[in-house]
């Protein structure tokens, strides 16, 4: 045993990065069981109960400890336990997990124990990650505040009266609160980047097709993409590398092998690490509606990138104003189709009215099982797809989508990434926007285009409001251009400490 083992027990595992934890487990400085137990204890202390954050819908202590013991046994036998050996990972509750209830934060799926693991989950397990539990979200990933969860909102670790953002609110909060160093979420219109920004962590929506969607409950198939959250850029890269790559079970998965991210991290970490990179500032994203503190923080971050060697230019994405309307045709249309399978016949909840026929069962089940926002979007989508209206709505939206993608293609001829605010505001109060769906939809105004164009988009912490709420910088890149985003993030992290700040949880302070 090396001298480094003397460190064991002195560092709280819940403050360590995934990279450091995996290294410690592989070098037998920490056992996977110790790491897992410490994280489970922190979750039990700060997430559960009336005043807890409610990031986890359920934890799987038995499964997590069994997986941890398996990693420890591998280490003991001298076998390779994987690059995420012993790293606790939480999953948004739309990742299908074998023998572990999966609900999408919906009553309609309550009680469903899947018989299989999705591809991303299987890859995490194969890399030695410990699945500690399933995370809160907006029901079926529809929402921007995590308030549409059938099991209550997730509170923001920086201020428990505020939202985490959404839909992957639990995934963002869990990393911010130190419940696990890596979580997975999905991003259909900003559902990774916006909550990452609102909780002060890093999150990336990879290029569409980089990560398999097999075993991820679909919201809008042509927009959904799986991505990780992490507390530092190195962990984010590590998690993305583990889950990336072609999957024959997902026909939309990219066959081309994505490049390793190590070189980009190393390049970004060097002085003047951004020399040769050009960052575009799309004028349509710097608009009066954005909160002044957010705008100031983002502009400061861009100056930081410039001082690290990046060339910064003004660019235009002229079809940006159409993104919201386009998104709210395509996403509901696809969700109205994807959610047709929740009919009470085979799994989840079934409501059978006495004496009712099959149609009555379908209606009662879906009436009782789906929340308001899900119903609203199913109705919007059903309307958009009905016979005779397809051309006017869905097809037209797809055409506009092509124009939006073309905007980006043109811009990326002259720059390697664009930088924008992730969200127009910092975290808002729980209940503040629930009465007005359109105000809620506007929370995603900066993040939707990226999904429509299928591009990679990252949010990194870039400062705080005077009230102490995190602000996010969004970086968007070319298709499969994640490396440039990581280079920028690494350079920024080397020059600032925003990402290293952790909230003091209300319960900790108490």
């Amino acid at each position, binding site marked *: 045993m090396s001298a480094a083992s003397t460190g064991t027990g002195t560092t709280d595992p819940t403050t360590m990065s995934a990279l450091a934890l995996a290294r410690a487990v592989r070098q037998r400085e920490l056992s996977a069981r110790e790491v897992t137990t410490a994280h489970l204890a922190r979750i039990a202390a700060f997430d559960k109960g009336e005043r807890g954050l409610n990031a986890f819908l359920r934890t799987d202590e038995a499964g997590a400890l069994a997986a941890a013991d398996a990693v420890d046994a591998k280490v003991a036998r001298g076998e390779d336990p994987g690059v995420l050996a012993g790293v606790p990972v939480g999953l948004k509750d*739309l*990742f*299908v997990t074998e023998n572990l209830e*999966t609900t*999408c934060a919906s009553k309609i*799926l309550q009680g*469903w124990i*899947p*018989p*299989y693991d*999705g591809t991303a989950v299987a890859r995490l397990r194969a890399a030695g990650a410990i699945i500690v539990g399933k995370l809160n979200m907006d029901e079926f990933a529809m929402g921007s505040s995590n308030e549409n969860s059938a099991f209550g909102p997730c509170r923001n670790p920086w201020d428990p009266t505020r939202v985490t953002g959404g839909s992957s609110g639990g995934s963002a909060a869990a990393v911010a609160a130190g419940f696990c160093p890596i979580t997975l979420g999905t991003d259909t219109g900003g559902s990774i980047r916006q909550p990452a920004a609102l909780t002060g962590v890093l999150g990336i929506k990879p290029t569409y097709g980089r990560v398999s*969607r*097999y*075993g*991820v*409950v*679909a919201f*809008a*198939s*042509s927009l959904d993409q799986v991505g990780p959250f992490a507390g530092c850029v190195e962990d984010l890269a590590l998690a993305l590398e583990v889950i990336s790559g072609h999957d*024959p*079970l*997902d*026909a*939309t998965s990219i066959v081309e092998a994505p490049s390793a991210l190590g070189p980009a991290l190393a390049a970004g970490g060097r002085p003047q690490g951004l020399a040769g990179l050009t960052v575009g500032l799309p004028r349509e994203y710097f608009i009066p509606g954005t909160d002044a503190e957010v705008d100031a923080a983002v502009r400061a971050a861009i100056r930081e990138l410039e001082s690290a060697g990046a060339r910064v230019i003004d660019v235009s994405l002229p079809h940006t104003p159409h993104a919201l309307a386009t998104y709210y045709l395509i996403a509901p*249309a*696809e969700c*109205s*189709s994807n*959610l*047709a*399978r*929740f*009919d009470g*016949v*085979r*799994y989840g909840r079934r409501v059978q009215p006495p004496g009712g026929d*099959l*149609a009555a069962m*379908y209606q009662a089940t879906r009436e009782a099982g789906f929340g308001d926002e899900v119903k609203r979007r199913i109705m919007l989508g*059903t309307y958009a*797809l*009905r*016979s005779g209206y*397809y051309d006017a709505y*869905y097809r037209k939206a797809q055409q506009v989508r092509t124009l939006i993608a073309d905007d980006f293609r043109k811009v990326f001829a002259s720059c390697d990434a664009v930088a924008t605010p992730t969200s127009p505001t910092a975290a808002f109060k729980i209940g503040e926007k629930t009465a007005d769906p359109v105000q809620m939809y506007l929370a995603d105004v900066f993040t939707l285009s990226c999904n429509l164009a299928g591009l990679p988009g990252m949010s990194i912490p870039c400062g705080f409001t005077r009230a102490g709420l995190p602000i996010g910088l969004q970086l968007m890149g070319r298709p499969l251009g994640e490396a440039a985003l990581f280079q920028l993030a690494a350079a920024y992290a080397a020059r600032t400490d925003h990402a290293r700040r952790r909230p003091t949880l209300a319960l900790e302070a108490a």
Partner: protein
Amino acid sequence: MSATTTSAATAAPDFEAVIGLEVHCQLRTASKMFSAAPTHFGAAPNSQTDPVVLGLPGALPVVNRQAIEFALRIGVATRSKIRARSRFARKHYFYPDLPKGYQISQYDEPLCEHGLVQFVLDGQPREARLTRIHLEEDAGKNTHLPGRATSLVDLNRAGVPLIEIVGEPDLRSAAEAGAYLRALRQLVRWLEISDGNMEEGSLRADANVSIRPRGQSALGTKTELKNINSFKFVEKAIEHEIARQIDVVTSGGRVVQETRSWDAERGTSFSMRSKEQAHDYRYFPDPDLPPVVVSPDWIARVTSALPELPAQRRTRFVEALGLPAHDAEVLTGERALADWYEAAVAAPSKADPRKLSSWVQSELLRVVKDTPLAECPIKPDMLAELVALIDAGTISGKIAKDLFARMLQSGERPKVIVDREGLTQVSDTSAIEAAARAIIEAKPKEAAAYKAGKQQMLGFFVGQTIKAMGGKANPQLVNDILKKLLES
């Protein structure tokens, strides 16, 4: 209900029927249209499933390349235009046998369009145009338990690859529709892409039927006739529908656009749903599946691997082998049979193709009714040898029939049996004469009758003489010698 009979309908001179068939055909792939789940027919309920087939949350479809290849085969064989890029679309409706709440099908961008089906009716070659051939997945099966409020769902069939072959309304009679459907069945079996078994449901036909006054070019209101699940009922069901429509119109009514279900047991149909009750399927391109791209190279490979098609082979059998049209049609009914027959023609014995054809039809087809041709102990070259032995006068036709039965039992070559058992036909006139004399002496009464002018008695003596010689006597020689002896 109409009292109109089938015969009245076909006899009605004032109306013409316009028929188009929509034929669903299960492809015989090892796995399902969009997943690796197996496709065994008759397996335990819900055993041929996986997360994709069950429509579990998170499961995604992946196209079965073999299914595309099979669809390309029939596309090329029907001279269809193949789309370089076709798309799958979702067709939505709620039903317990449809696990996802939508069926993955093709809608506005099908794989094949504008094909042609060649078929024969009453010995006359005909053609009918195809609108399209597209790929889709089959649904599962609901079983309603009699007397109970429960239904059972079996998803074994769910996700089985189907092609839907949509025909133009080019057919003008039930008989023509029947011949067309049989030609399609022959084609899918010929191309080895489907079992084409209507009774097991691997081939299903819906008929769009309308009538119009003869000479009118505008189409009448059509009805869609479903549930014609046996070849036996195709003509009958369509004829019934034509008669029903004629009856409606001649009694002053109007045909209503509706979907009707054929009830084979009662020989009638009933309305399932009207146009107003039709679903809005909310078709849109399936975002889980990228477009199917078929390269010219792929089409070229399929084309060059295509077997000679039934129509071409029929023509060649007539023109090159001198077969009557009917024989050619029978022999090309199944590709395996045509192959078998051609192997016999090509065998070293060089037997006469026409005689081989009649042996195949009268003897071989009789014995292989319930077993695959490939398992028949009599191989093509053995039948050719047998026919050649008859032609050479080595054995009689009667001996040949016995030999055929014995070959079927033992799988031995005919020459082997003939040589071992001395079955060679006796053409030695002195031996025949001796036997014939003995018979005439033993039957004086019959001999006298013949001499008195009762010519048909000759047959009696021929039979007796051949029998006395163990069947091996050359019948023509026996005939000639008996005539000579009886008339001397």
